[in-house]
Structure formats: structure tokens, C-alpha cells
């Protein structure tokens, strides 16, 4: 049952061969069995979930149906969930109870999804390995000595370990796609503005987006259709006609032009990763697509651009954590300033502090033009590269990450080395374009490799279509880690 996709589970629920209460109980039991080993969940809401499952079954008995009615979901702990602890993986919010639901959480609940709990994450979404969480690292279900990726490591591990069929994540520099790649599942970042950021604790406001994790593209399409939509409470939420992201899944790939940037397949990338990517491309060419060699000359500047802009925005967004209205307040301090300084020093971990300090510096008097303004100009150069590329191709593909999952502790002392994990994912956040990672094989150690599919603005349906067609002729997405509790 827990190996089934959302689509399969929905069919079983519709046929009444399974109830949401039965499904949710199985999911909760699986979480109890796996979580001590993987640390994917920070909060599990057993009673509340079973209540929601009963309510979903009642809605179905009253004649309602929908593809997500009664399906369990886990939410990344950066999303507000009313009445439920929301920590952002930080000591700063260790006991914070959300007073309201994030927009995407409310939309999924309205569709009848059953929230089983909140997942572990890098602190305030700053990280690529889920090692900066105040609550301990998450283990990769494929090899518990390795990281699941980050910052949405808990959500990725939960889906990969079949603890839950659906999970939400957020992506600011790759934090959905990279953990999807490291954990062998599908993860999608929509076009900026497609999902409301209301209730998504802000890290970098011009980059953050929420998105779905699942094991198939078909499932991701169902989840995205529920999550997407205009919200007046988020001034960056786009007011567009509702889209059914499942509508185009079966469209044939004949005539599809796949752009492969030579910067994505050149030196410095793991051989096995490159080989899996080329094999995936071959499969798509056999389905009727054509390959176009392209160049994104400025894409190598993505990492320095991001590590100016994201910390700058973070330094502003995290200034609200001052111990006054919510969050950690120091036990003892001499005056108001001291209260701020000590509360923030105690509440934030090392990586968060480093990013706030970096951001403060690049925005400070005398440095703003040289760093922040400059980075914004280079951001435009990168966006122009992509604009030009989409004149020659429909989608851009390459590896999601330069390597497969590395060992826990391997990169924690070298922030820049950690940052280079995001080298392929960051550009989609800077430009705002949609991008998805899907599993495309394994390396010699049995660790998953992720294929990244990027598209022009609002091309989510096309990306999901290509991913779905690929998943009809391959079975990487159905593989399961060994050693899961049954």
C-alpha cells in the first residue's frame, strides 16, 4: 500500500477498497517505525491526522471526490500550520505554534489532504544537506550515513522512505530539487508567483517558492494543481487562470527541442552523474525529442550572485526575530540591545548567522553598489542567457547536482564547498523559471542521480509531460531503498 502512488491510492479510495483512516493509520505506523532512524519528522500529529482522515471519509461518503481527498501529506516545517508547532528547523522557533495556515497548506486541506506532520529541514531553509537543523540531521533512506540533501531534506526522505506519499517543500536555491535528486524522488519548483508565499516563513523573498514532492510526475501534477493559485495576501502571487497541470501529461514528445548547456556537462561533474544524464537524454530522443547544444555563458556566476542576493534578503527577513513578539528570548540581558544580540546569538545556528552577516555586509554603506547592485546586474545577465536559450529550445536539461549524496559531516566545515551543490539549481530561482528534478538512475554506490528539467516561465505542464513520458519507459522512480521497515 505504501509503495503506491497518489494516483493509485486515490483510485483505491474511490473504489472504496481502502479508507482514508486505514491509509492514514498505515502511514502513521510507518512514520513511527522509520523516523527514529531517519529523523525526517519533527512533529507528528497522530490524533489530528486520524480526525482529518475520518472527515475525508465522511466527505467521500457524502458524494464528494477529488484526486487528493483523503491522501496523507507532510509539510516542511517552514510552512505555517494553524495550531501546530512550526520550527523552521531552528532553536529560534523551537516552541512556536503557528497561529494560521499557510495558503498552500489551506488549499491542500481544502482538497481533502490529511496532514500527518511537519518535516525536518535546514535551519530557516539555509543549507543543502539538512545538517544545519537545530534538531539534528536527516538521514538519506538509501544510505543512512549520507545526507538526503537540503534544505527540504525531511520531506524528501519521508517520501523516499515511503513514510508518506506526498510532501511539500520550498526552494530558494534548489532546496526542493537537490534533495529530490539525492533521495531518488520527484520534486518541482514552480514559476515564481504561481504558489502563494503567505505563511511561508521568508528566507529570500524574491527567490522563495513552495512546491511538491512525490514519487512520480503524475503525482506532482496533482499536488501542484492543488497548491497553485492567486492569493491576495501575497503581493507577489500571480493572478492567472487556474491550470490543470495533469492535462498535458500524455502529449507526445515528437518535435520537443531539449537544450543541453555545455556548461552543465563539462569538467568537474561526477562521471557517473554525467553518464546517467546522457542515458536519460537518449531515452527522450528515442521518444521523439531532439537535442540542441546551447550555451549559458553567465550561468557559472549563479553561485556568487545567489550568495550576495539571498543573504541580503535573508538579513532583512530575519531581522524580525528579536525576542520581542515571538521566538527565543535570552534568559538574561542588560538592556534592549543586549536582549536583541543575545536572543539572536542563542536562537540562530552558525550557518544562519553567517548568512545574516554576509547579507548585512553587502547591504551596508559603502558596499551596496559593489556587491548588491552588481549581483542584481549579473542576475539580469543570467536571465538574458536563458531568454536567448529558449529561442532555440523548449526545455533545458542537465544534472540537478554535480554529485550524488555525500556523507554526513563531509562538507560542514567548508561553507563554499557546500554552496557549490547548488550550482545547477540556483539559476531557476534567480530567473524565476520552473524546474523539476526526477530520478534517472544510480551511481556505482547505489545512490540516486537526479535529472533536472527546466522550462521557460509557466512551462510546468510541459515539464511534467516530459517527466511523465520518461517515467512510462523507465522505472527509476519505482525503485525503493533497502531496509525499510515493512
Amino acid at each position, binding site marked *: 500500500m505504501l509503495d503506491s502512488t497518489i494516483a493509485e491510492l486515490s483510485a483505491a479510495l474511490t473504489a472504496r477498497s481502502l479508507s482514508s483512516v486505514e491509509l492514514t493509520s498505515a502511514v502513521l505506523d510507518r512514520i513511527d517505525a522509520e523516523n527514529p532512524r531517519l529523523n525526517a519528522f519533527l512533529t507528528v500529529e497522530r490524533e489530528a491526522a486520524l480526525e482529518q482522515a475520518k472527515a475525508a471519509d465522511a466527505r467521500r461518503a457524502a458524494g464528494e471526490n477529488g484526486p487528493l481527498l483523503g491522501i496523507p501529506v507532510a509539510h516542511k516545517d517552514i510552512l505555517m500550520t494553524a495550531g501546530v508547532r512550526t520550527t523552521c528547523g531552528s532553536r529560534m522557533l523551537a*516552541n*512556536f*505554534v503557528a*497561529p494560521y495556515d499557510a495558503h498552500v497548506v489551506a488549499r491542500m486541506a481544502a482538497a481533502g489532504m490529511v496532514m500527518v506532520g511537519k518535516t525536518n529541514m535546514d535551519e530557516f531553509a539555509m543549507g543543502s544537506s539538512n545538517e544545519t537543523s537545530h534538531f539534528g540531521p536527516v538521514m538519506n533512506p538509501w544510505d543512512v550515513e549520507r545526507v538526503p540533501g537540503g534544505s527540504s531534506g525531511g520531506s524528501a526522505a519521508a517520501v523516499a522512505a515511503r513514510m508518506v506519499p506526498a510532501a511539500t517543500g520550498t526552494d530558494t536555491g534548489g532546496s526542493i530539487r537537490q534533495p529530490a535528486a539525492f533521495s531518488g524522488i520527484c520534486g518541482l519548483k514552480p514559476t515564481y*508567483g504561481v504558489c502563494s508565499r503567505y505563511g511561508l516563513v521568508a528566507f529570500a523573498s524574491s527567490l522563495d517558492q513552495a512546491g511538491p514532492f512525490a514519487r512520480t510526475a503524475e503525482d506532482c501534477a496533482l499536488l501542484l494543481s492543488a497548491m497553485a493559485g492567486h492569493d*491576495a495576501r501575497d*503581493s507577489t502571487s*500571480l493572478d492567472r487562470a487556474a491550470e490543470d497541470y495533469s492535462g498535458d501529461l500524455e502529449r507526445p514528445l515528437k518535435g520537443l527541442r531539449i537544450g543541453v548547456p555545455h556548461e552543465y556537462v563539462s*569538467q*568537474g561533474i*561526477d562521471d*557517473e552523474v554525467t553518464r546517467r544524464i546522457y542515458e536519460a537524454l537518449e531515452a527522450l530522443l528515442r521518444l521523439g525529442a531532439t537535442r540542441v547544444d546551447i550555451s549559458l555563458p553567465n550561468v*557559472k556566476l549563479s*553561485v*556568487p550572485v545567489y*550568495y*550576495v542576493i539571498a543573504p541580503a534578503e535573508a*538579513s532583512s527577513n530575519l*531581522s524580525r526575530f*528579536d*525576542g*520581542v*513578539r*515571538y*521566538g527565543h*528570548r535570552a534568559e538574561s*540581558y542588560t*538592556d*534592549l*540591545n*543586549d536582549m536583541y*544580540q*543575545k536572543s*539572536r*546569538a542563542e536562537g*540562530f545556528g552558525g550557518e544562519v*548567522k*553567517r548568512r*545574516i*552577516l*554576509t547579507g*548585512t*555586509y553587502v547591504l551596508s554603506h559603502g558596499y551596496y553598489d*559593489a*556587491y548588491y547592485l*552588481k549581483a542584481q*546586474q*549579473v*542576475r*539580469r*545577465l543570467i*536571465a538574458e542567457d536563458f531568454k536567448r536559450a529558449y529561442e532555440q529550445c523548449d526545455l533545458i536539461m542537465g544534472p540537478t547536482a*554535480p*554529485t*550524488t549524496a555525500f556523507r554526513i559531516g563531509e562538507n560542514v566545515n567548508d*561553507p*563554499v564547498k557546500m554552496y*557549490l551543490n547548488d550550482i545547477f539549481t540556483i539559476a531557476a530561482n534567480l530567473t*524565476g523559471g520552473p524546474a523539476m528534478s526526477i530520478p534517472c538512475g544510480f*551511481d556505482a554506490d547505489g545512490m540516486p542521480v537526479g535529472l533536472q528539467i527546466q522550462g521557460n516561465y509557466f512551462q510546468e505542464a510541459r515539464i511534467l509531460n516530459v517527466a511523465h513520458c520518461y517515467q512510462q519507459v523507465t522505472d527509476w522512480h519505482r525503485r525503493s531503498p533497502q531496509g525499510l521497515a515493512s
Partner: protein
Amino acid sequence: MMGEYDTLVSFVFAQFFPRKMALSLADVQRIAYLARIEITPAEASDVEAKLGRIFDMIGELRAVDTTGITPMSHAQDLMLPLRPDVVTETDEHLVYQQNAPATEGGLYLVPKVIE
């Protein structure tokens, strides 16, 4: 596998970091004050070393020719949406203040600011 990763790191570094940018301890303390985060003397040198590495990486942006390029602050070219100037929020302070460290009579308590 990690050998290739180290090659990537060196490759990127060779492209980007011809000269080192020095960040002094005084800089670190000044920024820490602006950010209202207390950095102890013990932490300061570790922070300085790590920030130094980060600034080496981002410093290379300064060599890129961006003459005449309009800064891109956002993915969208949007105007801030407007709405009618009517009250739509309700008073939820009891709910919101449940997370407050110290309150009294609906007010948040903080150390005295004015002598």
C-alpha cells in the same frame, strides 16, 4: 567520486579567486553589531575565516562587465497590487500573543528603552 567534486571546486576557485579579500576582526564586529547578533571573541576568528572564504567567492563578481545593465531585483516586473482602503483585518492579538515571551495587558514587555 569526491575527487571529481574537488576538481570542480578547484576549477571554480581558479576561475574566480585570483586575489584574497581580507576581512578584519573589526569588520566582523561592526557587521555583527549592525545585525544585532552577539559574536564572542572565541567565535569571532572562526566567523572571520568562514566569511573570508565566502567573500573571496563573491568578490569575483566585481570583475564582471555590467556596463549599462539594469539591475534585476525580482523575477517579475510587477506593480504592487492595490486594494480599497477599508479595514479587513480582525483583532487576533490573543492568538498571536500566545507565542510572546512576556506580555501585560495586550502589550509586549521589553527592557526599558528611555531613561
